[in-house]
C-alpha cells in the first residue's frame, strides 16, 4: 500500500463512513417529523431483535454448559459469529466496498485509494464488531457464571471480541472482490454477481451445516461425547475458532495476542490486495457499455400492468444485492424439496428427534422458505429517486402495487413448480394432502407479498445512498420481508400441535383466515395516497 496513507486521512474518511451508520446522522439533523418517527420505530425494532439475539445466544451457551461442553462455548460462539459475518459479508461486500455513490467525488480528493479502501474496511469492521459482541457477550457471561474463571479470561475475551471479525470479514471481502471482479468483465454484471454471490453463500451454508451433522449416533452417545465432538467439528470446519476459543478459556494471553496479530496481518494483506485492484474493479463495475447503433423498428404496445411488471423485473435483475437476498429463500425451498426426494421421507423421519407428519408440515416449510425475504417488502423503497416518476403517472395506486405483487409471484413461480414436483414425488400425498401442499404455499406467499407492501408503504426509505440500506437494514426488510416466514412457522407449529391438525379442517380455516387478512390489507394498500410517500 502506498506510503502516503496518512492516519489523519484515514480518520477523516472513516468518520465520513461512520457518521451515518444506521442512519444516525439523518436522525440527528432531519427536520422531517415523519422520518424521525420511522427512525425511532426502526430503533425499537432493532432493540427487540438485539434482545432476542442476546437471549438466543445466552440459551445456546447455557445448553452447552448443561451438557458439559462449557469449554466449547466460546469456540462455538466464535464459529457462529464468524459464519454470520462471512455470509452477511459476501452478500454485501461487493456493493459496500465497491459502491459508486460518492466515488467520483472522493476520487477527486487528494486521498489515496488505500485510504478509501481502509475507511470502507473499518466501516464494515465496526458493524461486525457489534455483531460479534452480540453473539459472544451472552456466552462470555454464561461461561463466567458457570466456571468463575480468573481475570485473564476477561482480558482474553475482550481481545477476542476485537479480533474475531477480522478473518471472516477478510474472507468475505476477498470473496466479494472476486465476485465483483469476475462479474465486472461480464455483460450482465448484476446477474453474474448475483449468481456468484448465491453460489458462495450456499457453499458456506452447506459447509457450516456440518456443525450440526452428528449422524449415526444415539442421543445419549451424542451427549456423552458432545464436548469432544463439538471441538472436533469446529476444528474441522473453522480451526481459528477453536484456537482462539481455547486460548481465551485457558487464559493464555500470549496465544490470544499471537492469534490477534495473525488475523490482523491477514486483514492488512487483504486490504493491500483489494487496494491494488480497487480502482479497476470500481471502473469496470460501474461503466456501462454504449453502442450508439439503435434504429427505430417496430414497437409493440402493451397494457399498463404488463409494462409495469416488465419494468419491475428489469429493476430486480439490475441489482445483485436485491437478487441475492431475495432469491436465496426460493432456491433453498427447491434444495430442501429435492433433498427430501433423494434422501427419502423415511430417512428424514429417522433423523428428526420427534415424530412429524412430513406431508402435513411440508407446505408450511415450503412457504417459509419462499417468504424468507420477499421482493415486494422492499419494492416501494427500491424505487428510490425514481419515485417521482411513478407518482406523476396517470395510474391508480392499485395498478402500481399489483405490479409489485405480481413480480414477486412470477419470480417464485418456477421454484414453486419445481419444489411441488419434488415434494409430490417424495411424499406421494393423497388428493387432500396434495391439494393443501399446492395451495398453502401460494396462500402464504400471497399474504407475504401484500403484507410486505403494507409494511413498506408505512416504512418507506426513498432517499437511500446504497441498496444495502433498503434490502438488508430497513424496517421493511426486517418486518415485512419475514412476515410470511413467521406465519409459515406458526402455521406449521399449529399443524403439529392442533389435534387433527393435518386432516384438512385446520388448513382450510387457516387459509380462509390468511386470505381474509390479506384481502383487508390489499384494500387498505390500494386506498393509500402515494403522494404522501
Amino acid at each position, binding site marked *: 500500500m502506498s506510503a502516503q496513507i496518512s492516519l489523519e486521512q484515514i480518520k477523516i474518511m472513516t468518520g465520513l463512513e461512520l457518521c451515518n451508520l444506521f442512519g444516525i446522522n439523518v436522525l440527528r439533523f432531519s*427536520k*422531517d*417529523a*415523519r422520518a424521525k418517527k420511522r427512525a425511532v420505530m426502526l430503533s425499537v425494532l432493532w432493540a427487540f431483535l438485539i434482545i432476542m439475539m442476546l437471549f438466543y445466544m445466552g440459551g445456546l451457551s447455557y445448553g452447552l454448559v448443561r451438557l458439559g461442553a462449557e469449554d466449547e462455548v466460546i469456540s462455538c460462539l466464535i464459529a457462529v459469529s464468524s459464519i454470520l459475518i462471512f455470509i452477511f459479508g459476501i452478500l454485501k461486500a461487493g456493493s459496500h466496498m465497491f459502491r459508486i455513490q460518492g466515488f467520483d467525488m472522493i476520487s477527486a480528493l487528494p486521498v489515496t485509494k488505500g485510504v478509501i479502501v481502509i475507511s470502507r474496511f473499518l466501516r464494515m469492521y465496526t458493524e461486525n464488531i457489534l455483531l460479534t459482541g452480540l453473539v459472544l457477550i451472552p456466552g462470555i457471561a454464561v461461561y463466567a457464571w458457570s466456571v468463575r474463571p480468573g481475570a485473564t479470561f476477561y482480558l482474553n475475551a475482550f481481545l477476542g471480541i476485537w479480533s474475531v471479525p477480522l478473518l471472516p470479514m477478510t474472507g468475505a471481502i476477498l470473496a466479494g472482490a472476486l465476485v465483483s471482479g469476475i462479474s465486472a468483465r461480464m455483460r450482465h454484471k448484476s446477474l453474474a454477481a448475483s449468481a456468484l454471490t448465491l453460489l458462495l453463500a450456499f457453499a458456506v451454508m452447506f459447509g457450516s451445516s456440518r456443525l450440526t451433522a452428528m449422524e449415526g449416533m444415539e442421543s445419549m452417545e451424542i451427549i456423552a461425547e458432545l464436548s469432544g465432538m463439538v471441538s472436533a467439528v469446529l476444528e474441522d470446519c473453522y480451526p481459528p475458532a477453536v484456537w482462539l476459543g481455547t486460548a481465551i478459556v485457558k487464559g493464555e494471553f500470549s496465544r490470544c495476542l499471537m492469534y490477534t496479530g495473525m488475523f490482523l496481518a491477514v486483514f492488512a494483506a487483504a486490504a493491500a490486495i483489494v487496494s491494488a485492484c480497487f480502482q479497476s474493479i470500481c471502473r469496470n463495475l460501474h461503466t*456501462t*457499455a*454504449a*453502442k*450508439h*447503433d*439503435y*434504429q*427505430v423498428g*417496430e*414497437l*409493440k*404496445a*402493451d*397494457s*399498463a400492468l*404488463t*409494462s*409495469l411488471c*416488465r*419494468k419491475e423485473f*428489469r*429493476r430486480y435483475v*439490475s441489482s445483485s444485492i436485491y437478487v441475492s437476498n431475495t432469491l436465496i429463500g426460493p432456491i433453498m425451498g427447491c434444495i430442501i424439496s429435492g433433498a427430501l426426494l433423494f434422501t427419502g421421507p423415511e430417512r428424514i423421519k429417522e433423523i428428526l428427534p420427534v415424530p412429524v407428519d412430513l406431508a402435513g408440515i411440508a407446505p408450511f416449510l415450503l412457504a417459509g422458505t419462499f417468504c424468507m425475504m420477499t421482493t415486494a417488502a422492499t419494492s416501494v423503497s427500491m424505487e428510490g*429517486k*425514481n419515485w*417521482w*416518476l411513478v*407518482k*406523476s*403517472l*396517470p*395510474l*391508480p395506486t392499485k395498478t402500481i402495487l399489483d405490479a409489485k405483487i405480481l413480480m414477486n409471484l412470477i419470480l417464485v413461480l418456477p421454484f414453486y413448480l419445481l419444489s411441488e414436483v419434488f415434494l409430490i414425488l417424495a411424499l406421494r400425498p393423497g388428493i387432500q394432502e396434495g391439494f393443501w401442499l399446492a395451495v398453502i404455499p401460494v396462500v402464504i406467499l400471497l399474504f407475504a407479498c401484500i403484507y410486505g407492501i403494507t409494511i413498506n408503504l408505512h416504512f418507506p426509505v426513498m432517499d437511500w445512498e446504497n441498496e444495502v440500506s433498503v434490502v438488508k437494514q430497513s424496517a421493511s426488510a426486517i418486518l415485512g420481508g419475514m412476515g410470511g416466514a413467521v406465519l409459515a412457522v406458526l402455521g406449521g407449529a399449529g399443524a403439529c400441535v392442533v389435534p387433527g391438525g393435518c386432516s384438512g379442517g385446520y388448513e382450510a380455516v387457516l387459509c380462509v383466515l390468511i386470505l381474509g387478512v390479506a384481502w383487508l390489507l390489499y384494500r387498505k394498500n390500494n386506498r393509500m*395516497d402515494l*403522494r*404522501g410517500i
Partner: protein
Amino acid sequence: MLIINHLTKHYKGSSKGISDLSLHVRPGDIYAFIGHNGAGKTTTLKCIAGIHDYETGEIRIGGRNLRENPLACKQVTAYIPDNPDLYEYLTGIQYLNFIADIFKVSAEGRKERIKKYGDEFEITASLGDLISSYSHGMKQKLAIISAMLHEPKLLILDEPFVGLDPKAAVVLKGMMRKLCDSGGAIFFSTHVLEVAEKLCNKVAMVKDGRLIASGSMEEVVEQGRTLESIFMEVVNDVGTD
C-alpha cells in the same frame, strides 16, 4: 387549461412551501415561473404534476379538479423535473415504450413520434443503450421525448434548459411554440430570464412561497426595461417590506 386557486402547501417541520398562490394558464400560453432558489417553484410544479399533495386551495387542469380526478388530469399533462432521475436500468427505447404503454399511445403513434423527436434531438442512435450510460443532457432529451409522446395538453417543466446543448435548446423552444400553437399550454420554471422574456407571453414571480407579480409579459415588463431588472426590483422591494 391550468387554474390554481389559493394553493397552500407546507412541508412538515419546515417553513418552506407555498402560500395562497393563484394563477391562470390559458390554452396557447407559455407561462414562465421565476423566483430565487427555495422560493417554492418546484413545490408548485410538483403539486400540479400530482407528485405532492397540498393542504388547501384548488388546482384545475382542463376543467377537471386535480384532487377529484387525478388520473384524468395526469393523462393530459406531462412533467419534466429539473434533474430527470429516470430508470437507469432501462434502455432509452425501453423507457419510452414504458411511458407510451402507460399513456396508451398506439404502436404506430409511438414509433412515429420517437423517430421524429429522437432525430430532432440527435439521440435516436443511443436509444438502444442503458440510460445509466447517458449524460445529463441526454437524460434531459429523453425526458422531453417521453413527455411529448402522448401529445399532452399541458406541459410542466422545471428548469428545462439546464444541461441542454444550444441546438437542443433551440429544438425544445420550437416544440414549445408548436404545442402552444396547437392549443396546448406550458408552465415552466427558469432562472434564465432572457429566455423567459423572449419565449413567454406570461410571467409569474414568486418569493418565499408567495406570488409577488404575475400577468402578461407586456404588463409586467415596462417599456425600455428588462425582465431581469424588474425581477430584481420586485424581489428586493418585497424583501424590504
